Structure formats: C-alpha cells, structure tokens
C-alpha cells in the first residue's frame, strides 16, 4: 500500500463533514476534477508534485469547500437573524441585570454581610448572569440559523476577491417575522415638557405635605401607642427637616429651569445628581445611625419580641429604596441630557 497522496488527504478532509449518502458521489467527482486540473498543469510544463500543490492550494480550505457543497453557513449568526439576536440580547440584559443586581445586593445585605461582601457578591453574580445570558441566547440563535428551511440564494463568487458583501436589495435577509413600520420606535420623551414640570412640582408638594403631616399629626395610628404617631424621628425637627425643604425647593427650581431651557443639559443633570445624592446620603446615614425613624414607631406597631428584626430588615429595605431612587434619578437625567444633545 502506498502512502496517501496530498490529494487523498484533501478529499478525505473535505468529505469529513459531508453527509454519508453524498460522500461517495462527491468524493469521486472531486477527485476526478482535481486529477483533471493537475493533468492540465502538468501539460503546461509543471512537475507533478508542484502541480498537485498548486491545484489544492487554489481549491482552498477543504472544510470551506465542504460547507459550500452542503450549503452550511460559515457564520454563527447571519444577517437574517443578527438584528433579532442583538435586540433580544439588549432587552434581556436591560431587564435581567438591574433586577439581579438589586435582588442579590438586597438579599446579601439582609443576611447580614458587610459592604465589601455585598459589592463583591453582586459583581460576581452580574458577571455570571451576563455570560450565561449571552451564551444561551446566542446558542438558541445559532441553532435557529442552522435549522431554518430557507437557505439564501446561490451566490457564486467570481475569481479574485472572495467573500464580497451580499447584494443589497436582492437577497434581503428575513428574520423572525417581517418588519413593519409599526415597529418604528416612539419618539423619546424629552423629560422637559410642561407635564413633566407639573408632575415634579406636584410630587415635591405632596412630599413636603407628607413630612409636615407626619410632624404635626402622624402617619400611623396605634391604639396602644396613644393615637397618631410620627414615622420620622422628632429629633430631625427643625434643622434636618429644614435642610430637606431647602433641597426640595432647589429641586422645584431645577424642574422649572429644565422646562424653561426646554431640555435636560449635562450641567442640569449634574445638579440633579448632586441633589439626589445629598438627600440619599443624609437619609441613609441617619437611617443607620438610628436617627431617621421615630424610635417608638416599630415597637408600637409590632410585638416587642420581633420588633428589632423587623426594624433591621425594613431599615435595609428602606436604604436600598432610597439609594435606588437616587441612582435611577441621576441616570435618567443624564440619559435625557445625552439624548437631547
């Protein structure tokens, strides 16, 4: 038995990925064509070995040739599904990552972990979630790409540059469902309309009213606690509350300025972030110093033996909500400012 020639090895390599029932037929034809080409080159005066090398080099990567024979795509996700894949991935990341981050951070904090551990765990979970999400979504699309019945029309490339761009308008890729004009994105809210300003002012007024109501009447009613009682600690009056009102007044001014300017700008977004941060930091600091909530509030509403636990959990929840609102407000204003540029 003689050693396999380069042609033998080439044909074997090309047939590896061809379905069994086509293999003999394809192999015989491919070998015949290669031999024909080698013969022609030898007739032109090349020696047999260089002729074989030249012919096989021209044919190129056998796996690529086999893929062309069997109409297998040489890409993970082609133009037909690319946009669907990208849109779905972005949507899922936007939904899942914030929820996962918030949930994990809250859960780890409630279990009594230190700040460093909370941040570390959250980052690790976010990383794993991102990797898993990207992998599985992509895998589904790779399978869909390979199992869809419609194959793109034959697009032979001519001698010379291979793999030129597809024909625009001829081989229009079709993804999951046809695109219609109804899918055009809605014009984005500028966040600087009269309605936005009024909403901000009304909420600020309600907030201020609630604080005053809490101070002079009380938010919760407890028969054992002696009637209406305040949620906020009475020590906050008057200076902390006054500070809060100053910040709220500044926020009201900011809402009016945004309306007058007609859009969010980066400096306005920065002012908004600073105000949100000031309130959040002060509130969270007071909360964990035990100075924010009226110390008689929880014991009056909850049986004494479980009050400390409930108080701790509600304090953490409250801290997360305060921080979440501040972060959200800051990012929202920044995004609106960037969009309006």
């Amino acid at each position, binding site marked *: 038995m003689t050693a396999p020639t380069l042609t033998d090895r080439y044909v074997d390599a090309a047939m590896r990925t061809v379905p069994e029932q086509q293999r003999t*037929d*394809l192999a*015989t*034809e*491919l070998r*015949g*064509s290669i*031999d*024909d*080409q080698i013969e*022609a080159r030898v007739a032109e005066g090349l020696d047999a070995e260089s002729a074989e090398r030249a*012919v096989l080099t*021209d*044919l*190129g990567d056998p796996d*690529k*040739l086999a893929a*062309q*024979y069997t*109409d297998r795509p040489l890409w993970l996700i082609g133009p037909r599904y690319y946009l669907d894949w990208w849109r779905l991935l972005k949507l899922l990341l936007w939904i899942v990552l914030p929820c996962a981050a918030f949930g994990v951070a809250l859960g780890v904090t409630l279990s009594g972990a230190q700040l460093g551990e909370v941040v570390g765990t959250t980052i690790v979970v976010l990383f794993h979630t991102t990797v898993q999400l990207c992998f599985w979504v992509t895998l589904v699309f790779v399978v869909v790409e390979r199992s869809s019945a419609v194959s793109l029309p*034959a*697009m*032979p*490339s*001519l*001698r*010379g*540059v*291979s793999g*030129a*761009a597809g*024909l625009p308008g001829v081989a229009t890729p079709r993804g999951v469902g046809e695109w219609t004009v109804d899918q055009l994105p809605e014009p984005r809210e500028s966040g600087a309309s009269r309605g936005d300003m009024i909403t901000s002012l009304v909420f600020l007024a309600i907030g201020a009213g609630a604080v005053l109501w809490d101070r002079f009447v009380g938010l919760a009613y407890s028969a054992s606690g002696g009637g209406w009682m305040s949620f906020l600690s009475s020590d906050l009056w008057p200076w902390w509350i006054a500070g809060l009102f100053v910040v709220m007044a500044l926020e009201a001014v900011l809402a009016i300025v945004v309306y007058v300017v007609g859009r969010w700008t980066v400096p306005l977004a920065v002012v908004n972030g600073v105000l949100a941060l000031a309130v959040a930091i002060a509130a969270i600091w007071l909360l964990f110093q035990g100075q924010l909530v009226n110390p008689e509030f929880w014991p009056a509403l909850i049986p004494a033996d479980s009050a400390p636990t409930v108080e701790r959990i509600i304090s953490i929840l409250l801290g997360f909500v305060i921080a979440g609102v501040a972060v959200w407000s800051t990012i929202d204003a920044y995004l609106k400012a960037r969009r309006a540029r």
Partner: protein
Amino acid sequence: MGESEILETHLQELRRGTVVLACLRLLETPGYGYGLLEELDRRGFPTDANTLYPLLRRLEKQGHLTSEWNTDEARPRKFYRTSTTGARLASALTDDFRSIVAAIDALPKED
C-alpha cells in the same frame, strides 16, 4: 482597501450571477466539472474551481441540472445537463440581462 481592490469588488458584484446563466446555457450540451471550467474561462466567464463545483451541485439540487456518471473512460466523470426548468431559468435570466443592458444604454451618457 486600495482602489484596485475596490474596483475588483464592484466588478465581482456586477458579474455575480452571470456564471449561473453561462453554466445553464453551456450545459445544454452535457459537460463535466473541469471541462466546463475551461469552457467558461475561454468564453470570458473566469470562475474559480471551488466556486463552480458547489454551484453545479446546488443547481442540480434545485432541479435546474440533471447528472449522469460516465464510466466509459479511465476516469469516471459526472456529466451535467440543463433540465427543462433549467432551460426556462436560463431564458428568464437572459431576458433579464438584456433588459439590464438596455436600461444601462438608456442611462445618461458619459462624456
């Protein structure tokens, strides 16, 4: 990408599809892979072997070509021939190409 490469890409785009037409017309007389490759080259449709062979398979799968093995000679060869539907496709493509030529001629003339 250099200027000649860009030109090459555009020419390629323009000629894409004419190989299918040429194959269908030439294979009215049965032919095999390498013979067709030479014929195409001689008639001004230079094509790569690794493009032509899969193309023949694809056209056969679509029913535009039929094939038959010829084992009379020392080297067995698969002969392809244009089918009735293939002939219809060829004439549709030819008509379309003529109308493209007419449309190009009707474009504003270059100086």
